[in-house]
């Protein structure tokens, strides 16, 4: 009985704010109505910013996963001595606030610092001036999102690599005639899939909800639209929050569905992993 009461209290604690937001969103002062949703769907900024945020999040997710997964595998297999450095790098974004990183990136790519030009082997001046100017572009924002989400990408992938016997599985594949890439794609990747999905989900949601960097770079993304709307129309902002929540919820369901369809099926510990992500 006590357990049920505790469970009910926890559910109330989680759902009450959401319920209140939903009710606030559909109440227009005179009663209940869906006018705020009609306003949202007819607002061009809503679809434009949502699409842009979606594109940025997708690009960040793909870039982060494509960069980090083979790197973590390589470190696990060939450079175990580099693991402490990777662990440190993966923690840096936690220690450095997004605002500091934003200013840093703007400073680096918009100044004409000779020392930086030399240290970056000419890369910074190349990327700071036309035709490859990346200052305040969505491309630079994607790169920044990849760095911000580094802890969420590296950790789950590294944990998954440690959970399977990566070295022995790789050697077994080699002994059967498989090369590095084939081993990575057909043997290692399917076995660390839950970790990769976790990494992708966390990167995607981080990028979808990121405000500070987008604001500093002056790029009009969905969180900025949400903030601007909140300042002008609180009911509309509440409805937007509900829509945003539904979007995330659908993403999580999609991920769970993907994992369930894996060959061999999701095992117990992997299901727990998914619950932990949620």
């Amino acid at each position, binding site marked *: 009985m006590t357990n049920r009461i505790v469970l009910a209290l926890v559910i109330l604690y989680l759902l009450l704010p959401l319920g209140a937001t939903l009710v606030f969103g559909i109440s227009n002062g005179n009663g209940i109505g869906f006018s705020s949703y009609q306003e949202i769907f007819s607002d061009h900024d809503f679809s434009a910013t949502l699409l842009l945020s979606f594109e940025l999040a997708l690009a960040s997710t793909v870039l982060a996963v494509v960069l980090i997964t083979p790197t973590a595998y390589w470190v696990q297999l060939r450079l175990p001595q580099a693991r402490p450095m990777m662990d440190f790098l993966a923690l840096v974004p936690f220690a450095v606030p997004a605002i500091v990183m934003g200013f840093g990136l703007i400073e680096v790519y918009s100044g004409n610092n000779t020392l930086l030009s030399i240290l970056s082997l000419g890369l910074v001046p190349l990327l700071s001036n036309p035709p490859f100017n990346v200052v305040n572009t969505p491309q630079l924002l994607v790169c920044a999102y990849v760095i911000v989400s580094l802890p969420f990408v590296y950790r789950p992938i590294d944990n998954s690599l440690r959970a*399977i*016997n990566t070295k*022995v*599985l790789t*050697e*077994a*594949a*080699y*002994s*059967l*005639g*498989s*090369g590095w890439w*084939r081993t990575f794609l057909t*043997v290692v990747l*399917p*076995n660390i899939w839950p970790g990769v999905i976790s990494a992708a989900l966390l990167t995607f949601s981080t990028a979808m909800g990121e405000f500070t960097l987008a604001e500093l770079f002056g790029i009009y993304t969905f969180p900025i639209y949400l903030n601007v709307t909140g300042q002008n129309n609180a009911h509309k902002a509440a409805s937007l929050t509900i829509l945003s929540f539904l979007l995330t919820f659908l993403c999580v369901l999609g991920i769970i569905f993907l994992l369930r369809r*894996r*060959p*061999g099926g999701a*095992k117990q510990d992997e299901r727990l992993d998914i619950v932990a992500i949620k």
Partner: protein
Amino acid sequence: MAFLKLEGITKYFGQVTAVDHINLSVERGEFLTLLGPSGCGKTTLLRMVAGFEVPNAGTIWLDDDDITHRPASKRPMGMVFQSYALFPHMTAEQNITFGMSIKRLPKDVMQQRCAELLKLVGLSDKGRSYPHQLSGGQQQRIALARALAVEPKVLLLDEPLSALDAKVRVTLRNEIRRIQQQLRMTAIYVTHDQEEALAISDRIAVIAKGKIEQLDYPEEIYSNPRTVFAATFVGTSNHLQGVVTFPAEGICQAEQYTLHIPPMPHLHTGDRVLVIVRPEGVTIQEANETIDSEANSATGNHITGVIELRTFLGPFTRFHVSIDEGKTFTADLPSQQARDYYVAQKVLLSFPPSACQVLPLDAREVEAEHLTEGEKV
């Protein structure tokens, strides 16, 4: 030239020499076992043959081909690992056909060979099972089938039975031997289990500290060990250190015991030797019994002691007999004859000269033997 030949293979890990100038030849169809304690370099040697490690010096020849620097994926070797290393997301069939699909064999050939291999390892009904649905023994059988599927020139087995329980271990080792003989497959097997090595191998290389101590047939390794290490590592043995007094007559003095050993004309008076006696070569009598004429002959060896421990091991019973100042002597008796003897009983241990294996000791070995005496006797 031998089918597989290792010439002067050396491997360092930092300051540590894991494998030290090893020369080894394996004939086609031979089952060779690398036997040694943990950290002796046997697995490193196997990994160099497989291509997972590159030697710092030396050459590996396979069928007259220098494969020393060839990557593992390009070597015609099949490997079976201690931890099975089956791909968890693939069924048994998919695991077996993995190597064949890389070779782009036609699908019907792959399926036919897969069915044959499943039958060979006795798991025809488990093709659709995932590794986590199979027992340890079944997983290792599938791993064996997977390694054989690519038709390797050499099968490498790295302690494949270590993770299994005792009964499965014996069954599976016999299966491995049967399959190896049936396919006339050249195989190199790594183990630290001397009983396993003696049971399964055509030849055994006893390895210690990165060097081969003795390379020989199992019977020879057991009956005529060439080094102190080989004698102590393979089988249980009693050791008595002594000095040769009459080499031609076969007499040496080991502390207070005058031992009759086989004549050693090549040794000199004063040479230090280690006399090794296997427990099954020792008989036990009550100390007050009249020693029969044969045992009482001048050429027999007799030591009195008190039974400290009596261990029933099924067909025979092992006695640990305290002989002198904390030294114990081990004797095995058929269990039916062992009933008359009990702990704390004073007994007479007897063994003929023919039960003694004698190894000359150099100064270094005297010291090493002295340091580890407690463990060995």
